[in-house]
């Protein structure tokens, strides 16, 4: 099947496209506009990096996982697992602009400063809107990319272009679960006759993700809720059932009922079974405390999945880049529960939309579903 047709019929038409950008930046055929993946012209090749990298095209996920994480313990609910930490950036300035504890910005800055990586693929937004991928080589630039936009910009297009250039040889990637899966495919399942210099990817930091939102819908909502622009957008724990817009430069946070937001969820995200970015070296997300949201609001949970991830966290600890606190006994179970929740939604969606679970379904044998 033609690559462009394969992606269109199996991913875009089925509303499975996450907009990650893995198919872009490789050729003149694919591009995107405001979160929508666009095929400009048909490519007549029957295989291609676009469909090879797409996180929603058929893949033996278990085999991929074995290739990428040969030694790890795999938790059925969370994927490869070495350790779980509760941490935050030691630098209060990083924390100030961060979504939660600023651990990702701190780790990426460290990796760049130490030369572990020479470029970091990050996302930069304008007041949480119009996010775009950037390849950052200056450690001081990293913190400008802090914070979540709740959209999925096609940042992997920027990665693909950087890999094609082959100028940066040690690239770190930060991205949502769909992106970490695509990057894992790039590294461990390259196209036989064109590896796209995927060996230049050295570090992958995944971000916990519930879903991304439609760009236009979110923009309209943001402009309504924070007319002067939102400095920060966050979603408190589910019992609050809201999304919060903090206006840029201070002022009262506006809380919007989540029911206004849910229709804006990208359909593809409903079919995604990965909340914790199971194909990353490190996965980082917000922390939830049994003592209430405020307690751990400014902390991160970090799942260490690989040796590379472990070494980076150890380095951060030894350099005092990250501050740690004890992980409550209940944390891992809470995380598993949340992860399973997303997997269940995915299973339901896939059944509805694709008439079956297909290759995207999580390992059912391991999951106490329905």
């Amino acid at each position, binding site marked *: 099947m033609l690559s462009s047709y394969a992606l269109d019929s199996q991913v875009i038409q089925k509303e499975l496209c996450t907009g990650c950008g893995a198919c872009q930046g*490789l*050729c*003149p*055929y694919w*591009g995107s*506009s405001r979160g*929508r993946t*666009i*095929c*400009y*012209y048909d*490519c*007549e*090749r029957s*295989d*291609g*990096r676009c469909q090879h990298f797409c996180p929603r095209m058929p893949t033996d996920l278990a085999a991929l996982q074995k290739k990428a994480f040969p030694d790890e313990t795999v938790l059925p609910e969370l994927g490869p697992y070495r350790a779980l930490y509760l941490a935050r950036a030691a630098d209060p300035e990083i924390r100030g602009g961060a979504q939660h504890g600023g651990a990702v910005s701190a780790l990426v800055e460290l990796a760049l400063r130490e030369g572990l990586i020479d470029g970091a693929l990050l996302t930069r937004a304008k007041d949480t809107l119009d996010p775009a991928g950037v390849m950052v080589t200056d450690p001081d630039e990293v913190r400008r990319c802090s914070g979540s936009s709740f959209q999925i910009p096609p940042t992997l297009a920027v990665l693909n272009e950087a890999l*094609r250039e082959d100028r940066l040889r040690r690239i770190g990637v930060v991205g949502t679960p769909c992106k970490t899966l695509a990057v894992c495919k790039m590294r461990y399942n390259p*196209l036989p*006759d*064109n590896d796209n210099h995927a060996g230049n990817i050295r570090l992958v930091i995944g971000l916990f993700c519930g879903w991304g939102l439609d760009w*236009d819908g979110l923009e309209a909502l943001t402009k309504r809720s924070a007319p002067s622009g939102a400095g920060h957008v966050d979603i408190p724990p589910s019992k609050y059932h809201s999304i919060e817009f903090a206006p840029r430069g201070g002022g009262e946070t506006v809380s919007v009922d989540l029911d206004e937001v849910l229709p804006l969820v990208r359909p593809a995200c409903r079919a995604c079974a990965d909340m914790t970015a199971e194909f990353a070296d490190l996965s980082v997300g917000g922390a939830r405390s049994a003592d209430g949201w405020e307690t751990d609001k400014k902390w991160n949970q970090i799942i260490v999945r690989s040796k590379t991830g472990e070494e980076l966290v150890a380095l951060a600890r030894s350099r005092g880049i990250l501050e740690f606190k004890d992980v409550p006994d209940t944390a891992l179970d809470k995380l598993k529960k949340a992860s399973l929740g997303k997997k269940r939604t995915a299973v339901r969606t896939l059944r509805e939309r694709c008439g079956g679970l297909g290759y995207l379904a999580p390992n059912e044998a391991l999951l106490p579903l329905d």
Partner: protein
Amino acid sequence: MEWTMTLNEPGKVCLMQGNEAIVRGAVEAGINFAASYPGSPSSQILGMLGKIARERGFYAQWATNEVCALEACIGTSLANARSICIVKQNGLLCTADALHCGAQHGVKGGLVIVTSDDPSAHSSTNEFDSRFMAMSADLPMLEPTTMQEAKDMVPYAFELSEQYRQMVLLRLTTRVCHGRSNVTLGPLPEKPRALRKVDEWERLVCVSYRHTPMLETLDSLQEAFEACPYNHYSGPGQPKKLIVAGGTGRLYAEEALRRLGETDKVGLLSLASLWPLPEKLIVRYLQHAEDVLILEEVDPFLERNLQAIAGKNRFHIRFAGRGDGALPRIGELTPELVLAAVSSLVGKSLPKRAAAPREPLLERELNFCAGCPHRATFHLLRRALRHEKNPGVVIGDIGCYIMSSQEAGHYAYQACNCMGSGINLAEGLGQLTAYGLEQKVVTMCGDSTFYHSILPGLINARYHDSNMLLMVLDNSATAMTGFQPHPGTGITAMGDSVAPMEIRPICEAMGCKVAEADPFELEKTEALMTELLQEPGLKVLILRQPCATLKSKQQRTKPKVWVDQDKCLGDGCGCDKFCSRVWGCPGNSWDFTKNKAVIDPVSCVGCGVCAKLCPAGAIMVEGGEKA
């Protein structure tokens, strides 16, 4: 060839194209005025007239459109001028109102309208049979078969026009326009006809009470056509089998009868006076006939009219022709088609001859020329529209860019009507965007079309602020018909330099929001296009880049474009022959031995756009004047 147009050697035989013969005929008729808008197959006529106009003391004009041309001719007729107006079938349709009104008020100085039909629509969007216009407007129409007739009929038509104070239509078809044969020159008048001042009480006014006199004129013309020297008959005096032919059909029929050895047995009535039909002449040969074959292009015009005459006279005749399945319903007549129809009429056929083997021709779609700016425009439009949530609605128009409906323009548009219609189709759709149509509306026109018939539509769209984008593809030329001057070019048919009328200030004076860009500046222009699509209301985007054919005529040296095949990705992932397969310029070819791209140095004009598009940066551009 132009010397034959003005050579004053009566009796000399010259080889002439049909279009040249018309020019020569006009010169022999001593015309004072000629006007036309270019259209194949008769585009060359006014071009040649323009070149000899000064020498022969008449005025020639490439008019902004056919209506301007015809109405100018009607105006000059008032001053007793002999005027010739040259249009193609679609142009004649454009003039419909002027033609019908003009028929009612008639003319003073002779006015001949040369109209060329394009059977099979070789260089048209559609076939049309302009004989129906003569019938509809109650105007006399003549049709030549040979180049000699084409020349001779022009002075003849002028004489009729003046005698009956009526416009005369002279119908040509593609083969008559473009064929060549010997023409014996007639004498040239010493000078064009003398003009006469317009008398205070002279009137050329279209009013309803002129209807009856007009019909009476037509009756007189019918009587005159009974003796029209260009109607011919050959064959038995009382033919049982009769062929009635007009135009090319006559020559094909003569050939078929000769080959079948039936010349003496079958009657052949060739009609040059197509409207009004010489009924008595027709009846004379029809009355004994049992089988009649009609040979004509395009529609069964003679066939239906002869059937009516037969019916009126209670003849029992089997008619065969385009309307009766003996010949295809559409398209040109060919000697083979006519031979088959005549064979079936006479009940005898030629022995079959094995056709000589022929190399099969490759199927090839129409394409933009190498380096054509339209290719870049439609590449950018495709990309810009893909950025939209919903697919856009694109409306085409008439010009080279009509080929954008095919692969050359990535199947750009959904609708295309006649010349100048794009703005109006889009205007309507643009209004619907306020009523639930969630699509961007785009239309286009060339520079020549802009002047020809976009202006009133643009005024309408601007006044009603239709939500749409008009792209004016300004390539500084009426390229499709052969680079005739238009009001933007600063030159006239007679070679005078005049002040060009710029498109931008015209649009701005209307109050349109106007942007201008170069389609070869890919990124910038795509961004501009995308931005304009987001803006509400009427937008005009002028895309300026001269026609590649025009430029390659002017440039002395062209840049050398070549492919670094070591860098070229060929059909590999990341390219898949983007330059030759998608971009599709004839200059971008494929090296089958190496499986890499290659530039065809003959086709390439050196525009260098493919070098900007090559995903591997493998196309190099060196030196030369940039095309």
